[in-house]
């Protein structure tokens, strides 16, 4: 079997396979197929946030924690952007991860986005499968410095950490849709900087707005319990606890059960990642989230959603490439020309191409 050395922990074989997978070679595809039955064991942790919030330093410290306190094998996939013009990239996340060198229980792989725009590379999910099969118990995926809508990570990870830092934006930034919504754990890094209270307050009020049916609310300064109204619950547990695409029509167990355990309120953890402050608390929050996922049935729901989006992505790519090869190629070019001349809209062109009646 091709992949035996990888299952046995050969790091060179693992590294080479990642290259094959990244380049989408036939060998890479065969190996992925062989490895797939060995996947599904790792805890996938996404780390996202704006550039300069300290994601890499946080990943460095979190990994040290998992190595020293839990003795878990950790793989890190660090994604940085490719240039849209030259296709080149400078991948610099390792600079902040030098503490992890010399440890065979850690494997760091840098990855360029190669044209993807959702904060990950197209093959990031496949990398996760390879590391999972190779026995890495924790897989940390660090996204590109993300702005507002790079939310693919929520579809891939079990637990998504959104990293913020003081001084990056006012309150209105915090109520926009997008990246904050996908957080399972919110980190305010660089907590020694001025303005940390404002950042924390803004995040907290955002969370309260996002969770109108939260059981415990502030009422005239007092904490009181309110009931979760059944009509809102399914929406809540889908949107808040899962935060994924494919919500509609995805009949996860959690969407029909309304219990306390279904509700996860993202905790806000303050850290100073360069000094390791707040890291044990962060690791604890991640562990609690994992426990919550298992309790609520969301672990399998997320697994289902992830594999569904992976299948969709592969299918899309395959259909597109099948369409663009062979006889359809000329028709496609012809349709494109018509669209460029404004003789036809893209919608019309797609419809005609799919019906196979381009004349």
């Amino acid at each position, binding site marked *: 079997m091709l992949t035996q050395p990888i299952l046995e922990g050969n*790091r*060179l074989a693992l*590294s*080479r396979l*990642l*290259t094959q997978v990244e*380049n*989408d*070679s*036939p060998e890479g595809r065969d190996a992925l197929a062989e490895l797939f039955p060995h996947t599904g064991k790792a805890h996938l942790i996404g780390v996202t946030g704006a550039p300069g919030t300290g994601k890499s330093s946080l990943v460095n410290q979190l990994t040290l924690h998992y190595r020293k306190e839990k003795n878990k094998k950790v793989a890190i996939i660090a994604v940085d952007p*490719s*240039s849209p013009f*030259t*296709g*080149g*990239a*400078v*991948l*610099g996340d*390792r*600079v902040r991860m*030098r503490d992890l*060198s*010399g440890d065979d229980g850690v*494997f*760091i*792989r*840098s990855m*360029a986005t*190669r044209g993807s725009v959702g904060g990950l590379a197209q093959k990031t999910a496949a990398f996760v499968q390879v590391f999972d099969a190779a026995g890495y118990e924790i897989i940390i995926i660090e996204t590109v410095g993300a702005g507002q809508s790079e939310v693919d990570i929520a579809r891939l990870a079990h637990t998504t950490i959104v990293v913020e830092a003081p001084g990056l934006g006012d309150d209105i930034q915090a109520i926009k849709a997008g990246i904050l919504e996908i957080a399972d754990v919110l980190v305010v890094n660089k907590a020694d900087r001025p303005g940390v209270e404002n950042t924390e307050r803004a995040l907290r009020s955002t969370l309260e707005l996002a969770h109108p049916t939260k059981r415990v609310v502030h009422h005239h300064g007092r904490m009181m319990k309110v009931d979760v109204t059944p009509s809102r619950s399914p929406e809540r547990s889908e949107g808040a606890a899962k935060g994924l695409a494919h919500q509609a029509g995805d009949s996860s167990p959690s969407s029909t059960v309304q219990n306390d355990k279904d509700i996860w309120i993202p905790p806000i953890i303050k850290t100073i990642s360069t000094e390791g402050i707040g890291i044990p608390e962060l690791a604890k929050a991640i562990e609690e989230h994992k426990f919550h996922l298992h309790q609520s049935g969301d672990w399998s729901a997320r697994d289902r959603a992830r594999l569904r989006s992976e299948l969709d992505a592969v299918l899309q790519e395959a259909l597109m490439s099948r369409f663009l090869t062979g006889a359809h190629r000329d028709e496609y070019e012809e349709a494109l020309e018509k669209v460029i001349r404004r003789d036809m809209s893209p919608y019309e062109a797609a419809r005609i191409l799919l019906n196979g009646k381009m004349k």
Partner: protein
Amino acid sequence: MTEKKIRVLVAKPGLDGHDRGAKVVARALRDAGMEVIYTGLRQTPEMIAEAALQEDVDVVGLSILSGAHMALAPRILELLKANGQEHIKVFIGGIVPDDDAPKLREMGIAGIYGPGASTEEIIRDIREAVK
């Protein structure tokens, strides 16, 4: 199958803290369409070999200004070989006396670039070396 990218590890072994040259080269290689893994200052040979292994690079570019190239270069080549990566081409940029250059080439260093070397030259040589 997508196009194969040239992956380059740019590393600064040794103790000098001047990484401007390394950054200029990293940027130039990026603009030439390569994927550059930048590891930062004060890397030991062990750290460099480990990064090269994990990143499955085609090329390692070392920036050495400290004069320690005769100690660092053979050690790094040895570690790459021990990891089964003797195919990796190793280039050195920095201050290398004329007398040392032939010795380094004999050890297996693929290219040596002093002050005034053009980035075009480095890019061309890398492309040629990994063909």
